[in-house]
């Protein structure tokens, strides 16, 4: 694999117009990645789902070079109906279109920031891989006091031109004081057996609000990894919702640093998995100053041969008095072959805090099914009703009503 990496890397460098210094930086990332390789189960963060094994089993040999010289045709059928929105379209990892038609253009700045890799303290070889291979990094800046009128949908789409490829993409966002961004990541794939690696950096200034919804609904055989790093200033709010249902493998990581007082972070997630899917959410919330708040709710419905894992970590610094941290994960196992793993972790160094976590897993309650059947539903309907009710609980946490309805439609939940 290492030879392939080096060859593909040289090809990527040739296509890029970047300075020698930036090339050196990319080389150092590649070197680090080659040293560590894909993460495996020996690393604590990858204990439950071993990406290195999964790539071997599902894809085999990966190649890392993608030819981005020619544009791809945009298939408008993937667009979300019934919701006016701004668009960023990625096809096979290439940015095809950035469209902020609904907005005041003077309030949004888009800069090419390749080479300006934002550094944060994190031991993760997939981030090194991403930094080494991304060909374009845009920074989207929302100016002071501006709230986007319409949500921004980032389409992550693939077509049949790629197979057994590793696709890396990265975006940086900065929300200036008192600004607001609603961001939907919308995945639609027409390929299989690729490994997509997404890295987002968010920088939230005072009083800004970020709402990020990741919707992976359509069944496909790709493997995906997404890492969100969120830095939050005073009184800022971040809300992350993850619908994890489509890909063969999807690991969502959210690392949230609450650097400013009265900042808060919300992470809600739904796993709805079927045959042979393996998904994971790993969240780290670092409460670093006083009066910060975090809330997490993760629910799983697991079908045959599927596996979900939730690793949640709340860290409370000794300075972070009056922290409020909450974490709950629940799972319904539908089949004897399904598996649920959780590691809800608390690491607390301050005494005046309110932190708790809970985790529960089990099967559908037969008594409830019996109750519904006695009211005239058949077995299948009763089960569906119970499962929908179970998941609806998380969807209801979405604070934006337009998007909440969109998600409900996508999942097929009716009011």
């Amino acid at each position: 694999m290492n030879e392939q990496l080096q060859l593909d890397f040289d090809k990527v460098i040739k296509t890029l117009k970047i300075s020698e210094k930036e090339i050196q930086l990319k080389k150092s990332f590649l070197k680090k990645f080659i040293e560590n390789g894909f993460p495996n189960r020996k690393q604590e963060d990858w204990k439950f789902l071993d990406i290195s094994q999964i790539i071997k089993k599902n894809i085999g040999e990966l190649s890392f070079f993608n030819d981005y010289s020619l544009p791809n045709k945009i298939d408008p059928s993937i667009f979300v109906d019934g919701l006016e929105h701004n668009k960023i379209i990625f096809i096979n990892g290439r940015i095809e279109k950035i469209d902020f038609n609904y907005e005041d253009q003077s309030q949004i700045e888009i800069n090419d920031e390749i080479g300006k890799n934002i550094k944060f303290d994190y031991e993760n070889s997939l981030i090194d891989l991403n930094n080494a291979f991304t060909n374009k990094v845009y920074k989207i800046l929302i100016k002071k006091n501006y709230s986007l009128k319409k949500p921004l949908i980032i389409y992550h789409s693939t077509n049949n031109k790629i197979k057994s490829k590793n696709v890396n993409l990265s975006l940086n966002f900065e929300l200036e004081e008192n600004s607001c961004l609603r961001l939907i990541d919308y995945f639609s794939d027409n390929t299989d057996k690729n490994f997509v690696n997404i890295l987002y950096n968010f920088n939230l200034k005072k009083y800004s609000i970020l709402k990020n919804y990741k919707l992976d609904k359509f069944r496909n055989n790709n493997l995906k990894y997404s890492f969100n790093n969120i830095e939050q200033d005073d009184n800022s709010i971040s809300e992350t919702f993850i619908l994890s249902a489509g890909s063969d493998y999807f690991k969502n990581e959210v690392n949230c640093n609450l650097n400013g007082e009265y900042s808060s972070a919300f992470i809600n997630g739904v796993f709805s998995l079927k045959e042979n899917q393996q998904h994971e959410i790993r969240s780290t919330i670092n409460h670093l100053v006083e009066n910060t708040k975090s809330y997490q709710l993760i629910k799983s419905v697991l079908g045959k041969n599927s596996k979900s894992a939730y690793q949640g970590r709340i860290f409370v610094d000794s300075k972070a008095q009056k922290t409020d941290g909450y974490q709950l994960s629940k799972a319904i196992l539908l089949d004897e072959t399904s598996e649920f793993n959780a590691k809800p972790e608390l690491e607390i160094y301050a005494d005046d805090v309110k932190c708790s976590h809970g985790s529960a897993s089990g099967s559908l309650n037969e008594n409830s099914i019996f109750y519904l059947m006695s009211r005239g539903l058949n077995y299948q309907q009763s089960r569906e009703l119970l499962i929908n009710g179970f998941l609806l609980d998380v969807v209801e946490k979405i604070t934006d009503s337009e998007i909440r309805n969109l998600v409900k439609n996508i999942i097929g939940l009716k009011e």
Partner: protein
Amino acid sequence: MDTREKDIEKLKDYKYGFTTDIENIKAPKGLNEDVIKFISNIKKEPQWMLDFRLKAYERLKLLKEPNWQKPKYPKIDYQDLYYYSAPKSMKDKPKSLDELDPKLLETYKKLGIPLQEQARLNGIAVDAVFDSVSVATTFKGELTKHGIIFCSMSEAIQKHPDLVKKYLGTVIPVTDHFFATLNSAVFTDGSFVYIPKGVKCPMELSTYFRINASQTGQFERTLIIADEGSYVSYLEGCTAPMRDENQLHAANVELIALDDAEIKYSTVQNWYPGDENGKGGIYNFVTKRGLCKGKNSKISWTQVETGSAITWKYPSCILKGDNSIGEFYSIAITNNHQKADTGTKMIHLGKNTKSKIISKGISAGFSDMTYRGLVDINSKAKNSSNYTQCDSLLMGNKCGAHTVPYIKNKNFDSNIAHEATTSKISEEQLHYCQQRGLNSEEAVGLIVNGFCKEVLQQLPMEFAVEAQKLVGISLEGSVG
């Protein structure tokens, strides 16, 4: 000449030399095959026991010391330790209580430990009025009547080799992790308990009544077997502070419960935690594991951990038999610079198995307390359930409390529920108690005892009273 004699011959030529004087036997520093053979020889062990040790040693050479735990400690030089030394002779021991540290005496007084007891704990020769040996003998008679075997491990290897051979190393195999394997190679002594079929042990068994209990050394090995339909409650340790010059303690405890048997294992650990600045203190790296081998069997662990500089242990249950039950009740208190990383593992293998975990962690001063637990429900463990509750109490913002549960559910018929909270003693609670005439330390003691009630209730009666006092004393100086 048989092999053992040959070994002895060989050892005589060993360059550091061995003294044969029974009073002062000491193996040379360091860990190697010769030392293991020496230990085995001194204890006149049969060949199979020596093989067991050597097998463990072979394995040990391949193992690395784990380092994933939260409390880090300076590297231990295993070649710089003595692995065998005979009990101290009377000459070295203090002659009377006056020679002891006054602080220690004060603690004894608070715990209400009788004078004679205090002397015994410190190895002071006791006069004829109080003869603990005779007390122990009386108990022994009672146990023999029921056919219960309760003796030291060395004695069991000599007198009941079939039982030891059959069960030793079946729960903690020689191929286990570093410290357990180290213990398998060099363990010196410990307790052995066998409860025959259908016998309910009439009293709480305690290391306390076993002669020589205080000299088991740093590598203790305990094996408890409860045969079909039997019951035993075993107490380990005591509330009085224990001083020991060995810094590393790596004991192994194996419990085996056959069909319908029940074992209750209670520990109160109050070893020297080091001084207020975190200097010295004992490393308590213990492997405790119970196997519910038979149907309807039950193993229950209760622990009160207040001592040691570093406590690193996970008393576990392997629920292999159908309908078996595992329980874990724990109070861990850390103060000053103490560190603890403790919890349990519940491995559900059999059908209808149940487990319950109640863990209470209290940290004060500059200490760090981690609950780490694993609940693993296997795909064959139909209709199993687990309930876990771990609560932490923090005193001050220099200490830490952490919870790291691992939850693995592979069975759709099974339920796992986990809850954890972290809180502090509120000003109102303190104020209320103080208004009623308690001083601040008494008030904290009262509130903390309330916090720990669920676990304290599980302890045998006499023990519980002492443990309550201990909880209060451990937190002295942490408030105000």
